[in-house]
């Protein structure tokens, strides 16, 4: 491996890390402002102009709070929990293609850390281990509310992973590849959403459930479980849990725009080339991610929470059969187009 490539990838990794964390920090501000707007309030406006420094103030506050570990807690697992949650939230961004090739210093720079040919499976692998952070943290707290939160989180995530995976398989069938790069390049002319609106709907609902966002935020449902799995957490450990939720929101918005909305593709992109195309592509991708984040937040402040049995019914009895039927129809249509009948 040549050194230039190594430097290039390291810069990209650090940049992605900073961008995901920065985006997560400013998403908290954006969410509070949006909630205020929806509820006809002002929202944070003290720190800096329009309260723009609020995330920094929150971060400093989180760090300066007392870091408390309950005496009956499993100390090591209590510490590992939030770290694991943040880790799994961050590593997904490694396989996301953020834009077309950038041409800098006489080199073609791919804006993707690793173009592995099983990209989408990697994403699902990370999602499936993402539940450990919440589970371990909730159990190690030695508190019944935390344990209930952890149990709810894990059963919810296992249930919704299935329908999510099946609806993603339809996209794999369409593009004929597991690599996220190929999936994006296959959508140059028509985005997948026009072929697979149902799969998108299922995927989006499941993503909300996987993120533990309202209306599926039962693991941290304040009216029943105090704070859910992070009841006993304080200081930056709590901060990491809250932060990881926003980071995974950012990453899953990126995944959804890749799978269904053409990633960095935008209408009329054949008129551009080179670095202009790359920058416009990154901007288009950022706009799509932003719209997804906005919709997710909008849903949170609009729709009330589900009951737990409703959540399970929706997952197993509605979304999973629907996604299987959708997969079957897609398979038949693709087989027909290839002249099987």
């Amino acid at each position, binding site marked *: 491996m040549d050194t230039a490539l190594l430097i290039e990838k390291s810069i990209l990794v650090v940049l992605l890390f900073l961008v995901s964390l920065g985006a997560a920090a400013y998403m908290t501000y954006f969410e509070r402002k949006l909630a205020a707007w929806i509820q006809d309030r002002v929202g944070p406006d003290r720190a800096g102009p329009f309260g723009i420094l609020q995330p920094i103030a929150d971060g400093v506050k989180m760090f300066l709070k007392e870091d408390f570990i309950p005496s009956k807690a499993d100390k090591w697992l209590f510490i590992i929990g939030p770290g694991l949650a943040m880790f799994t939230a961050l590593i997904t961004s490694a396989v996301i293609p953020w834009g077309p090739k950038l041409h800098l210093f006489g080199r073609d720079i791919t804006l993707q850390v690793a173009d592995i040919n*099983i990209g989408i499976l990697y994403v699902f692998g990370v999602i499936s281990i993402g539940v450990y952070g919440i589970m371990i943290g909730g159990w190690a707290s030695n508190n019944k509310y935390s344990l209930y939160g952890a149990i709810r989180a894990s059963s919810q995530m296992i249930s919704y992973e299935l329908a999510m995976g099946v609806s993603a398989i339809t996209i794999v069938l369409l593009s004929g590849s597991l690599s996220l790069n190929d999936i994006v390049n296959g959508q140059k002319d028509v985005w997948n959403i026009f072929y697979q609106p149902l799969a998108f709907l299922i995927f989006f609902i499941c993503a909300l459930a996987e993120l533990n966002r309202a209306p599926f935020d039962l693991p941290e449902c304040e009216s029943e479980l105090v704070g859910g799995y992070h009841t006993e957490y304080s200081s930056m450990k709590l901060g990491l849990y809250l932060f990881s939720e926003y980071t995974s929101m950012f990453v899953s918005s990126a995944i959804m725009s890749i799978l269904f909305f053409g990633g960095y593709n935008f209408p009329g992109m054949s008129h551009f080339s080179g670095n202009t195309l790359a920058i416009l592509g990154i901007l288009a991708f950022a706009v799509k991610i932003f719209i997804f984040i906005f919709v997710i937040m909008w849903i949170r402040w609009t729709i009330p929470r589900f009951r737990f049995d409703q959540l399970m019914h929706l997952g197993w009895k509605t979304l999973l059969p629907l996604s299987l039927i959708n997969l079957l129809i897609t398979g038949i249509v693709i087989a027909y187009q290839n002249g099987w009948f």
Partner: protein
Amino acid sequence: MSLQVISIILGSLTIASALMVILSKHPVRSVIYLVVTFFFITSMYIMMNAQFLAIVNMIVYAGAIMVLFLFVLMLLNLNKEVEPVTNRGAQISALIAGGSLFLVLISALKETLILGQNYRTQDSSIGLVKELGNLLFSKYIVAFEITSILFIAAMVGAILLAKREKQIIE
């Protein structure tokens, strides 16, 4: 050379975490060490360029089966007092059974050690999903289909068992 060093480090870490599974006193910690072991095995697959197998190992074992293990263990009331006491006879028979399995595995692995050298000289795309799919749907189609029928039978059986139990409770 450096590949060999990495695989030796990974192998010893795998064995260390696997040992911790049986040595650690607390069941939840055992499960977590088992998850770590699966991760090391995943990394071994990646070293052999079997990307698909690696990620499936991660999704199925570390992601699904171990979550269920952890789920069940969390719901049990695990105190020192209720820890099951195993008698000496069970321990000795377990030792003999496990030891003979270990011997059989060693004798089987001795053969594969020689075969294992081949993957380096072969095409590097051998572990990729395309090759695997082509093989599964041509050469091994019968075995593959029979396995899927077995899986469906097991699934139907599990659902039936769960259903019957529920009716008794109601």
